[in-house]
């Protein structure tokens, strides 16, 4: 049973556009929600993370929006660049779970020049 559902599977935007990736979770015990970026042949790299006591967090061009009541969170990439083309994973964890991240299935983002 997939505990974190991610959509869309893939998306294509033009340079400067704002790709939006959505995730939904079931387990209300989750209290840490990171986003990872992965390039081919590399491991996932932590981009940004949020805890459920805030509704939005920005780091550079990346923004997480969090809706605790709907059990949903999303990633926005502002002013996207071709170098942002990668696969993005949302994840969730309970902080007493000793590193057991539950990942979404991933979204392949392509930013065209």
């Amino acid at each position, binding site marked *: 049973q997939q505990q974190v559902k*991610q959509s869309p599977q893939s998306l294509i935007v033009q340079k400067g556009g704002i790709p939006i990736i959505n995730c939904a979770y079931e387990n209300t015990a989750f209290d840490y929600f990171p986003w990872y970026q992965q390039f081919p042949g590399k491991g996932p790299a932590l981009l940004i*993370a949020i805890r459920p006591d805030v509704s939005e967090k920005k780091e550079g061009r990346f923004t997480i929006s969090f809706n605790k009541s709907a059990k949903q969170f999303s990633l926005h990439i502002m002013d996207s660049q071709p170098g942002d083309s990668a696969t993005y994973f949302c994840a969730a964890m309970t902080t007493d779970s000793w590193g057991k991240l539950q990942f979404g299935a991933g979204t392949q983002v392509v930013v065209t020049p």
Partner: protein
Amino acid sequence: DAGVTQSPTHLIKTRGQHVTLRCSPISGHKSVSWYQQVLGQGPQFIFQYYEKEERGRGNFPDRFSARQFPNYSSELNVNALLLGDSALYLCASSLGQGEKLFFGSGTQLSVL
């Protein structure tokens, strides 16, 4: 500072063989986790170790085992390899419980 390092980067084995994958965490990190990533999917949790003790185990068969050494490095062992074990095996380290996870580049295992 060096990140999480894994070895080897690529490995080819045949069905029924055994494999050992190695991981060195970021300096100062005492926790190591292992994940399996099948092509086109998100990583799946296998094990987590802290201070040489297993703290978590995912839904993987007993053919999978791991250990952590006094220097906090770790090994993942897989016995009786199956074709379905072909995947990218990722190691992640963190300072401790509930802390940020940092991943290595992984070991690409192909089982023929």
